């Protein structure tokens, strides 16, 4: 597990990370979100033992990263931002080198490298120099490198940044596969990714932790959560007025009206689900409901909300 306490990093005049504390348990895929320059990369670099913090502690699987970076790094697989790789090496040569740094030797090393190349679908490019790889293969090589020593913790800094949708999908599937018995912490500013992959979300802005929650909880914070859009055929009636009588409904907007066909938007008073009561009312009046959609909430709303307001909202997951 990862335990971060009161982590601070100052660069000359700027405070990049400002008193960040959190803990992550096994089996978690943690999405680390935030606008550019929020302190994501700096935080991850400190956990990976690359940057020494100005103050605060990071403990990975019981090992203090600041006091004993090398021992902590044995537990960690880390893919830095932009996937730096030794461009002059071949894929298999590069992976063999990292395996050797990780203390694997001889046959054990070769077996491990072959196994990881298989899992990361790199076998076909194993003799290719790294600088001739496409971005997708490059990223996969970067991921493969993190897995060689079978670490308990994976830190991935923007793993899908700059990939096309197909390549993104492949990388996501790989991460999902790895997720089972590890801690994965990935930073991103792609919100769909978080929804697809993560069991927990943290939003950081201006070096401070603004929010710590699950994707589901987060979406509930979105202003439009559970707003109900209703297509209804109501001959000779005014469904908007009638539906506005439901106690949980704050307001009804008429989106569209063509003869007896109405498209209405019901906004709940307190983000309650309105579907059951709306259908009840419609059945009572013998209206025909042709379509019914409840808004699942949008992460980008919450993201924008959290990263633009100054106050710190904290909620435990």
């Amino acid at each position, binding site marked *: 597990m990862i335990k971060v306490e009161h982590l601070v990093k100052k660069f000359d005049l700027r405070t990049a990370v400002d008193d960040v504390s959190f803990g992550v348990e096994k089996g978690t895929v943690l999405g680390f979100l935030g606008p550019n320059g929020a302190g994501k990369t*700096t935080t991850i670099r400190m956990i990976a033992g690359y940057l020494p913090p100005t103050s605060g502690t990071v403990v990975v699987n019981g090992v203090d990263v600041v006091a004993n970076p090398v021992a902590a790094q044995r537990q960690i697989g*880390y893919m830095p931002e932009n996937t*730096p790789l030794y461009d002059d090496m071949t894929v298999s040569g590069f992976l063999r080198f*990292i395996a050797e740094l990780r*203390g694997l030797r001889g046959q054990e090393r070769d077996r491990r490298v072959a196994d990881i190349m298989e899992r990361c679908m790199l076998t076909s490019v194993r003799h290719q120099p790294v600088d001739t790889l496409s971005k997708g293969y490059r990223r996969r090589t970067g991921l493969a490198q993190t897995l060689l020593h079978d670490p308990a913790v994976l830190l991935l800094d923007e793993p899908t940044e700059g990939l096309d949708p197909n390549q993104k999908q492949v990388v996501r599937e790989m991460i999902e596969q790895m997720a089972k018995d590890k801690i994965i912490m990935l930073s991103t500013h792609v919100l769909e990714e978080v929804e697809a992959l993560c069991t927990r979300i943290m939003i950081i802005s201006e070096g401070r932790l603004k929010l710590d929650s699950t994707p589901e909880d987060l979406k509930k914070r979105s202003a439009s959560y559970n707003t109900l859009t209703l297509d209804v055929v109501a001959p000779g009636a005014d469904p908007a007025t009638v539906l506005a009588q439901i106690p949980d409904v704050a307001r009804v907007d008429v989106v569209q009206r063509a003869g007896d066909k109405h498209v209405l938007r019901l906004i709940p008073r307190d983000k309650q689900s309105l579907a059951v009561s709306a259908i009840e009312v419609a059945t009572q009046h013998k209206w025909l409901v042709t379509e019914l959609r409840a808004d699942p909430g949008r992460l980008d709303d919450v993201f924008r909300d959290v990263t633009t307001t100054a106050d710190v909202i904290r909620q435990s997951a």
Partner: protein
Amino acid sequence: MRVCNQVRAVAKREWSAYFNSPVAYIFIIIFLALAGFFTFSVSNFYEAGQADLSRFFFWHPWLYLILVPAVAMRLWAEERRLGTMELLFTSAVTPGQAILGKWLAAWAFLALALALTFPIPLTAAWLGQPDWGVIAAGYVASLLLAGAYLAVGMFTSALTRNQVISFILAVVLGLFLILAGFQPVTELLSQWAPGWLVDGVAAFSFMPHYEAMQRGVLDLRDFVYFGSVVGFMLFLTHLVLGNRSGR
């Protein structure tokens, strides 16, 4: 031993990095061509009629001055530029192991280039009766000198992500370390500076130690000197790399 394994892994990678690019071949060709040119054409090896290699070793400090920084400049600057330093220092390797591994690889490469000058002593042996002990001492001195230059170049390489800056800084530092003890310069200095000062500055220089050794005098103090230069420069490299700003 785990520690040695990592030093060896870094050294192996660095060694193959030289040969994966044209750098190694170009360096070796230019080094051999220049060494031959200076020895035979400029110093008139044949005309001198002496079966020794002083005319060959005389040029080494000057050859290394330009060529060793060219070998050293990429060692850390490249890692910084590509961001691979972050990868290296998060793969359970200490900076000390990485520094040592890289220095050993580059030194071994310079040793290879030096070993390829073997036709020159063979020529001397064919023409006359050279003192093999002096020749061996000359090679040892030259190898130590190359290692010291290399450590200087490694330090300047750690300072920047720009290889050109690293190269220039290494040449300037190397020039100082030569000139501080180069006889024409010390003679010039002794005309107005007190003798103890001239000697003090000269003691920092490569030259008195190198010259003593290549005359065939293998004094422990000269070994200690070159060892200290290398140790001190690698220590400075360690300081620079340890003080990471994350940029």
